[in-house]
């Protein structure tokens, strides 16, 4: 069953008086099955961020349809978008986006508080997530007191705690050192193995090679995709590298 359906998605940015237009997304089509772990790769300016913003209901497409679990995202009214995000999506950002005014625990609680969950239930939900992510000791600390990797794990906990339909990760390893990157990717794989759908946008080959499927975007279109099949991480890594080389040298199709 596909949980996310993107068809004929278009996004055109125009200058204030409409004199010049730039098509960030020309015609994007893909679907994500429930429980899948998909990475989207592309160079800077390929339209990755625009795509993610539309998937997150942070931005409206110019044309096309996005369906999440059968619900048409483009039809959601702006005022309902925020609560939609809160209830259905989990976010992991490159720069963590933790609030410096909250302890780690309160940061993780934020979406639950906004949904009006009772405090007792929050505690109950937090315990297993924090244990899985290994951040039990950090809960009372403030973001400025912990390392980047720990911050990102806290951000993952915040994304997971609402049991979202899909986790959207935007360059989650971009601000991490290699050790933390490895840890985070292992974590993603582990989370995915419990049935959690993950969609990750990245230009790190290493990050992408932990996914089950890799989509390549170029000039606003899905250009190519690779399934992991039975490949190991390093085999997938090699395939991705090859594809990227091809993309960079301008081959038409593989």
């Amino acid at each position: 069953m596909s949980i996310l359906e993107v068809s004929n998605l278009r996004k055109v940015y125009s200058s204030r008086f409409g004199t010049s237009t730039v098509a960030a997304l020309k015609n994007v089509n893909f679907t994500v099955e429930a429980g899948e772990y998909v990475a989207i790769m592309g160079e800077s300016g390929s339209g990755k961020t625009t795509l993610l913003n539309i998937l997150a209901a942070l931005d409206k497409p110019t044309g096309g349809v996005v369906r999440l679990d059968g619900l048409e995202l483009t039809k959601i009214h702006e005022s309902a978008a925020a609560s939609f995000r809160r209830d259905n999506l989990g976010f992991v950002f490159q720069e963590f986006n933790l609030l410096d005014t909250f302890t780690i625990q309160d940061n993780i609680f934020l979406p639950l508080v906004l949904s009006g969950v009772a405090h007792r239930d929050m505690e109950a939900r937090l315990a297993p997530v924090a244990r899985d992510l290994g951040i039990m000791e950090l809960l009372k600390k403030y973001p400025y007191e912990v390392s980047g990797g720990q911050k990102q794990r806290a951000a993952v906990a915040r994304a997971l705690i609402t049991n979202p339909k899909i986790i959207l990760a935007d360059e989650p390893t971009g601000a991490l050192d290699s050790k933390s990157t490895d840890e985070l990717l292992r974590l993603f794989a582990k989370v995915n193995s419990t049935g959690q759908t993950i969609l990750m946008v990245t230009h790190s080959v290493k990050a992408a090679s932990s996914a089950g499927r890799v989509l390549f975007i170029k000039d606003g279109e899905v250009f190519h995709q690779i399934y992991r099949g039975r490949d190991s991480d390093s085999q997938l890594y090699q395939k991705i590298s090859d594809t990227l080389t091809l993309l960079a040298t301008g081959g038409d199709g593989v």
Partner: protein
Amino acid sequence: MKLGFYPRLASDGIRKNRRMYLPYLMTTTAMVAMHYIIGYLTVGGALENVPGTAFITSLLYTGGWVVAVFSVIFLFYTNSFLIRRRKREFGLYNILGMGKWNIGRILLWESLITALISLTAGLLIGALLSKAAELMLINLINGEVNYVLRVSPAAAVVTISVYSGIFLLLLLNSLWQIRSSTAISLLRSENYGERPPRANWLVGVLGVLILGAAYYIAVTIRDPLTAVGAFFIAVVMVIVGTYMVMISGSVLFCRILQRNKRYYYNPRHFVSVSSMVYRMKRNGAGLASICILSTMVLVMISSTTSLYFGQRSALRERYPRELNLQFYMKDASYLSDENVSSLLWEVEAVNTAQGITAQNVYGYRAASVSGLLEDGEVELDSSALSGFNLSTFSSVYRFIFMPIEDFNGVAGTDYTVGPGEAVACVFRSEIDCDTISFTDDVSYRIVAKPDTFIPNPGSSMEMIPTIILAVSDLDSLGELRDMRDYNGFPILQYTWNYNYDTGADAEAQTRLYDALRDKFTSNPTLSEFFGFTGRSIECREVESQDFLSLYGGLFYVGIVLSIVFSCAAVLIIYYKQISEGYEDESRFEIMKKVGMTDREIRRSINSQLLTVFYLPLIFAAMHLIFAFPLIKKLLSLLQMINNLQLFAITTGLSLGIFALLYMLVYRATSNAYYRIVRGAR
């Protein structure tokens, strides 16, 4: 017109930061205008030809300096907001290869532009409003108005030099701040994170204790003279206490809120409480400043309004009748019935000659002395007072002895007292002893303490409390009559007081006043014959101009300073909101991504503002309520009869109007905050 590079950068800087600069410019303009107006009224000589304004002129002159000094403190405060905002921009210039020297030149131009705009606009507005200010003042003191509009170059020169100096100081401060920081710290200065403050119980508790002590002092003060000293001590304590409570207490308060899970983990409070606790340190100081300014405004307005509207009754206290005569007699023998009635006949002769019949007459003989009253014992030896301190000073009383028949005649009572007994009337104080003894032989048992007020110029003018003792007759003063002070003068001062209305118009009263003075002043034969060494002849009509100008002047200065302080409070509120808005911008962006709706953001902001914003107002109201008894005592120095009702009304009204204004400011500034936070998208 082609501007140079630096002037253009500077003017761009101001234009692009207009949300910060506009209120700043408005404030500097208002301060300049205010200063010019005060200058116009004082050094400009606008009041030179108005009689009775010497006091106001000096009062306003002081007020002018208060405004100037306050401008320095306050503009430094607001300027620090501006600099904080601009540092990032300057940091970027610095990294792009601009030296500190070049940044200094931009700052110099910015200062020049700011100074030019505020001085020009301020002087222009000041010149336009100065006539209105003059008319208002003259109207308040019942003077005669003229409608000649003129500009005072002297006032303009003073204002320009004072504010040029202030702008120079501000520039030097900015330069120093830029000089002492590196490019990277400039770039980052704005989002330099503070660690969340730990709740400091000690400071919080200490603050509460200090506030409590100040309140205790204010409430328990009994006599007005101590009140003067206590007032300043209490003011300092309240300021210190407010700062401590707001800075530390507010953190404590938030921590307590956070501990209440059900309150804290509520969408409406979650974000606001945590961001409040995070920046409470700075926030607390801002709140305390707003609170102190609000309190100052309220105290000034309520007390000067009360004085102003009570001025007529004060005039009547000080000058109980249209004409008030007091003769100082050499000794008690000249207070004999014969001598007094002959003197009265001489006064009546003048009245008759002027065609006036005395009405509402009251006259009395009195002997007065000052002394230290403690536990019913009076120390009359003034050398014992030499080492006085505040506490002994507060028990100095003025005693006025009156024959009981004179007292009954004036007060309309029919007390009878035997030898060694007295009826006591106490003003501006309370006594709890039943006997007052002056010497071993001269001692009075107090048989009654009526509240009757007997207006007498002495106790209206002097600050010390008065006790009128109505005794069987002045001969009972015994050995007091022979006692002399260290200068060899008798300690008792004998007076014959005669007060009456005329029923005539102002002109006739003035004529009579002149005639009385002609007759009794510098007439050695007459004073020798009747045995008076001095006399005071006062006509209410003649004195009222000076008198009313005092109250009108105080009222006026109260209004002027209130405007200045209110402007300051509003601006602090505004800057607080704006700077917090910029700080919170990124936070709300994150919260939006996590899934906070616009409505939730608005609600959370409201919750935060409501909790924080009305705190200063509530504290100011509390300060005012506790200051009430103290201020009442202070006012009694200027007005004998405690016009409690009037003061209560003016206080209540001031508080109500101020709260209303406060709410309007709250609406306006919270919108500014919301616009910034919303702009995050």
